[in-house]
């Protein structure tokens, strides 16, 4: 018998709590596949955030720590400084990383912490009920922006990857999406690179993954993919923001 498809060793058999059409499942799988392929499952410590992926510690078959809201990069710093030879990654949403945890991510990057961050951006707070996020697009409806985000009073969405790419301590920053199979393949490549950068001790690495939230966007899973493509990508352009080559220049 030939095995053509199986669960990565870095995922547990647990059923996830994610809503139908949510792309967290895809992103979890990509991270797990990369950890398996790099053969570092037994040397990896992950940090789960607060938000929709708060229970990620039940899904990754790895040593995990659950961090307070936004503090995952600080927790990761503590772990990495104790175990500099281990692989340490944070998995964070946009509320966690771009609002309450802005200071922690900026300074982990500035210190050039040798950690990897998977930043899942779905432009909304999912777990708490569809509130406006720092990444919510202008005009996008949210429970705390019922008429759509008003730039006049609620300001503009934050492009974290672009901000982080300006920091000298970062080695690799890329933005990817998972709205179709081609993009999923590219996303995996970027995630793998972000872990390799850590193994090579080149500096801080982050992959921003554009993600859907059909439940809080009020769309079907398919319509959500289309919405991401048509609305998020023009504001959050895909591609590599920074590579180690630029660091060396």
């Amino acid at each position, binding site marked *: 018998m030939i095995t053509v498809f199986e669960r990565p060793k870095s995922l547990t058999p647990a059923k996830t709590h994610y809503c139908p059409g949510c792309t967290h499942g895809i992103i979890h799988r990509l991270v797990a596949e990369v950890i398996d392929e790099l053969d570092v499952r037994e040397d*990896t410590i992950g940090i789960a955030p607060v938000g929709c992926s708060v229970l990620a510690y039940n899904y990754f*078959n790895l040593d995990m*720590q659950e*961090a307070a809201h936004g503090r995952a990069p600080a*927790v990761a710093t503590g*772990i990495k400084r104790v175990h500099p030879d281990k692989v340490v990654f944070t998995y964070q949403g946009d509320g966690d990383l771009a609002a309450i945890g802005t200071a922690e991510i900026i300074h982990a990057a500035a210190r050039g912490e040798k950690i990897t961050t998977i930043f899942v951006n779905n432009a909304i707070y999912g777990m708490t009920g569809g509130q406006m996020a720092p990444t919510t697009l202008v005009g996008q409806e949210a429970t705390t922006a019922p008429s759509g985000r008003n730039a006049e009073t609620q300001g503009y969405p934050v492009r974290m990857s672009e901000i982080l790419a300006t920091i000298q301590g970062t080695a690799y920053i890329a933005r990817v999406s998972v709205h179709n199979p081609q993009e999923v393949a590219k996303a995996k490549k970027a995630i793998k690179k972000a872990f390799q950068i850590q193994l090579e001790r080149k500096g801080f690495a982050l992959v921003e993954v554009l993600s859907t939230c059909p439940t809080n966007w009020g769309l079907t899973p398919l319509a959500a993919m289309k919405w991401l493509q048509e609305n998020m990508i023009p504001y959050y352009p895909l591609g590599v923001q920074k590579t180690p080559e630029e660091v060396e220049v």
Partner: protein
Amino acid sequence: MAKVLMKGNEALGEAAVRAGCRFFFGYPITPQSELPHYLAKRLPEVGGVFLQAESEVAAINMVYGASGAGARVMTSSSSPGISLKMEGISYMAGAELPCVIVNMQRGGPGLGGIQPGQADYFQAVKGGGHGDYRLLVLAPASIQEMVDLMGKAFELADKYRNPVMILGDGILGQMMEPVEFPEMLDPASLPDKPYATTGAREREPRIVNSLFLDPVELEEHNLKLKEKYDHMVAEETRAESYFTEDSEIVLVAYGSSARVAKAAVDQARAQGIKAGLFRPITLFPFPKHQIQEACQNAKQVLTVEMSLGQMVEDVRYNLEFRIPVHFYGRVGGMVPTTRAVFDEIKRLVDGEVD
């Protein structure tokens, strides 16, 4: 080992290194900054890590990560900074992670001042962060005692898998006294921590966590924590009694205030007044049996604090309201004088009570 003359904050730093601590994460704040200054130089000499964090909040969360990874780790701050750390302290208590936190208290509330205070007693002893949890709180009154309690603090933190606070004040941090250090403890000699996230090599994954979404499980977790705190109450109380056997009036004070109170007791004794001092060394757990024993012949009690009356509530409660408990305090960075405390003793024993 010979005694050396050292500033309190620096002595605490050396004591932490001697106790096997190799990781410090903190943020600058007066009047504790000499502690991070010392460790910034000292920790790299012993293969340790000193990291100045971007905030108090980040610092305590780095402590969380390092402790969850199995390390002996500490942080230090002063009053306003400790308020910021309360989030992480609550998470550490919830996730049952050991660490040592030093608070060199200053005057408050708000930004307050930079002179010594003892107004964070409630925060340290009653909670401070959210949820039902307790810190073990140790209150040294000399540099030597700070050094001795630092080793004890790490031991207790590991024993109970709980954060331990050393509650000092600006005076203890800033003053110099001769001090003798214990031998260096090799952190490699400490037992492995069965909860530490080190990579799941040939074992099941470990999860460091304080989230329990099922209320049945969360209640069970809270009850398990309570059992730990009950053990602390039964086993870990420490106190010093000074001339309390025959005392008609017992002073109760901790930290720097206890030194002032002790001098006032000496003055009172010199004038034939039967005064004594009871000094709690653990503030949580409060030394209930010891204070009851120390006050068994007392007609009245005088609590002295650099606050407007915080520990005095625990004094009354632990004496079960059977003896009149009076209070004398100075705040804002003002320190009680021996003269003022002596006058208060005199006024009370002479019966001029309000």
